[in-house]
């Protein structure tokens, strides 16, 4: 009576590590393209942003569709897909002049709506991922005290990263700026997501050595990239509008946030399609 470990029926063209490698390479290449295009190449920035948002959305939906209707993680991945689709829409509305749309209240309302929707879907999806371990019925992988040693520094880092923008947007929102209000809500949602990444990361760590560790680990890495982007934006904002290497670094972090999520989606599909022998 012996059990051989499950193996895929044929060597897959994609593996989680290859998906990670592709995400890293593509992130660097796209940031280099933006850097080479220079500060005035708005169209290039918009195109690369849209590309990474849409790749992330498509990846998330591909992962969702690998599950059956009603499955817990299908809903979580579908929400991430909507999150990134709304981000892409927001980027389009932000560049209304490139689209030939008149600047005015409509573009602002559309941008605000896309921002709010994106953040709502993102937080909801992250709540579902964060609650996955609790739903399994397994004992918690970490004690409350150990959790606190991770959560407290992360909460401080999150507040430092989004704090300056939150204060600025809050002040503008108080003067009736609806877009600023949506950005302020987005900053608050970012803090929530950065805290929710703790249980997601602990899930990845608990599953280490198994195929399911990859998606949870890569989602955590994607969130870390977004946290660094918020922190980097706050820092570069202190020195005026970012340009040159600073702007390229921010673009790299945005690309990583999106493409690591897409790599997580590939890893998720591969994990659940692993066929036991």
């Amino acid at each position, binding site marked *: 009576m012996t059990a051989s470990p*499950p*193996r895929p029926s044929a060597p897959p063209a994609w593996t989680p590590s290859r998906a990670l490698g592709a995400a890293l390479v593509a992130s660097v290449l796209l940031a280099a393209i933006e850097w080479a295009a220079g500060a005035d190449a708005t169209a290039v920035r918009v195109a690369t942003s849209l590309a990474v948002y849409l790749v992330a959305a498509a990846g998330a939906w591909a992962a969702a569709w690998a599950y059956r209707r009603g499955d817990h993680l299908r809903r979580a991945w579908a929400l991430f897909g909507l999150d990134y689709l709304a981000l892409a829409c927001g980027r389009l509305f932000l560049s209304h002049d490139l689209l030939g749309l008149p600047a005015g209240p409509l573009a602002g309302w559309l941008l605000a709506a896309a921002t709010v929707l994106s953040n709502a879907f993102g937080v909801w999806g992250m709540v579902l991922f964060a609650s996955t371990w609790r739903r399994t019925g397994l004992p918690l992988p970490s004690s409350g005290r150990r959790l606190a040693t991770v959560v407290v520094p992360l909460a401080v880092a999150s507040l430092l990263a989004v704090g300056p923008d939150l204060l600025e947007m809050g002040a503008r929102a108080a003067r009736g700026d609806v877009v600023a209000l949506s950005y302020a809500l987005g900053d608050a949602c970012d803090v929530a997501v950065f805290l929710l990444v703790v249980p997601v990361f602990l899930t990845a760590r608990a599953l*280490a050595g198994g195929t399911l560790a990859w998606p949870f680990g890569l989602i955590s890495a994607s969130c870390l990239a977004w946290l660094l982007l918020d922190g980097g934006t706050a820092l570069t904002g202190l020195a005026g509008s970012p340009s040159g290497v600073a702007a390229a670094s921010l673009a790299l972090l945005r690309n990583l946030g999106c493409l690591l999520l897409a790599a997580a989606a590939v890893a998720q599909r591969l994990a*659940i399609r692993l066929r036991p022998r």
Partner: protein
Amino acid sequence: MNAELPHQIIAERLAAYLGPNTAQVAVRTFAGRACGCLPHELTRNDVPRLVEALRPMLRTLLGGDGAEELLQRVSEDFR
């Protein structure tokens, strides 16, 4: 590792997805809940109850189709 005992065989099946540590934790947790025994006390007769107990956890992580396929394979290991 060549698994010989029921809890080792099941843990080895789960380990590909959950990793070796959590696979053992899962067998220990659900063996206790479903069969009221320690993993090394599991017998072939306990396997159907353990499979049932593992189902919700695996459905959460692998989805309905993936969980059923894995559990079917576990059951076949003991036929």
